[in-house]
């Protein structure tokens, strides 16, 4: 699975936890996952951070540019529900109101174990 990382208006905490998964301790490449630089190559769109009005258009565009089939993972409390930003003025809805989401990984931020478990569950449903 090749993962493209889309960061919304994130507080950067989730981004750091995602990077943790690539380090020697957690190493998601054991399962053949790697980060790719272009949405055209991606199998999984990993969306974190609260999605505000400006991010919404970009998220839609990235989703349309990605080669189908693509699986969307909402990462972190902000990606899943909006978290503490849910009632803020610029908030444009959690990820699943914009594009279809296949897996949710909650937490603020989710532990690397939670991310690996979520991605493994997703890859089981794909098979």
């Amino acid at each position, binding site marked *: 699975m*090749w993962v493209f990382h889309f960061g919304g208006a994130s507080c950067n905490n989730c981004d750091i936890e995602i990077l943790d998964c690539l*380090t*020697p301790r957690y*190493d998601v*490449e*054991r*399962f*053949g996952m790697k980060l*790719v*630089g*272009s949405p*055209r*190559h991606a*199998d999984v769109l990993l969306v974190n951070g609260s999605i505000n009005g400006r991010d919404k258009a970009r998220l839609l565009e990235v989703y349309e*540019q990605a*080669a*189908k*089939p693509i699986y969307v993972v909402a990462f972190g409390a902000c990606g899943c529900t909006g978290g503490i930003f849910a009632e803020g003025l610029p908030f444009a809805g959690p990820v699943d109101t914009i594009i279809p989401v296949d897996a949710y990984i909650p937490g603020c931020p989710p532990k690397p174990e939670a991310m690996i478990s979520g991605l493994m569950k997703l890859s089981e449903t794909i098979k």
Partner: protein
Amino acid sequence: MGEQLFYFLIYPGMLFAGVVGGLIAWVDRKVTARVQFRQGPPVLQPFYDFLKLLLVKETVLPKHGSAIFFLLAPVLGLFGATASALLILLPAFGITEGFRGDIIVLFYLLAIPSLMFVIGAMASGNPLSAVGASREIKLILSYELTFILVVAGVILKSGQTLYLDEIMMMQQTQGAFIGSISGVLLFVAALFTIQGKAGLVPFDLAEAETEIAEGTFMEYSGTAYAIIKYTKYILLFILPVFVAEIFFGGLTFTGIHILWSILKVVLVLVLMILIRNTNPRVKISQAMRFFLLWMNLLVIAGLVLHYLGL
């Protein structure tokens, strides 16, 4: 005719070189992971990736750009890589002897995949791909001169013979070229050249994923990208074999020599992977200066030493 088609499509051409290249791509990822104290992917991961791209994913065509060239370029690149795989592997496995001047033809055939990637990237109409393409062109301009000088040096050392097969035979009777000082200098230059040709890290500026989002390959997806991956696997296999042929006395497949032949290829490969893991990506001006000045000086020093009998 049937025999040639078998050579081209199955053994030792497209299918065989691609499968071995896939295994080598796994070795590459595994050694990289071990260098970084990680676990690394499973053995069949490159094949999973290839089959996923080939069979499952959709191929997106660029909106602004020429679809025909965009799709034709990877196919032609694959044929260029396969043709050079034939010329390298047929003498290596002792199936046929090749023909007079095949090492020169090889020099041109090995340039085809990179040029086709450039054409594909230009046809995609994406600005970042165009940046990648222009970088790739500059890189080709810098390393091709070094590469032809290395090939010329090898031809000189083998006493003006143009047969790849004879070059190997000569090394098996008179000792490998790596055994002399000039041979070592030529080998170092050849190692950096194939690093550039395979697009590995110090010279991966055409597909820098962190700055220009995979550059030349940015717009490719699905089957077209699978073909590009396959071409890359073939190149990753045949380039170390070529260097082993022209510097380590070729490959022989009888008895204990099988082990030696595999060790030679793995040695070149591990050197490439270690260079890849211990160096940062260079800027295009640094790459050009590195090849046009330092590597060419190294090769010319090697040629002078050869004339002095070293």
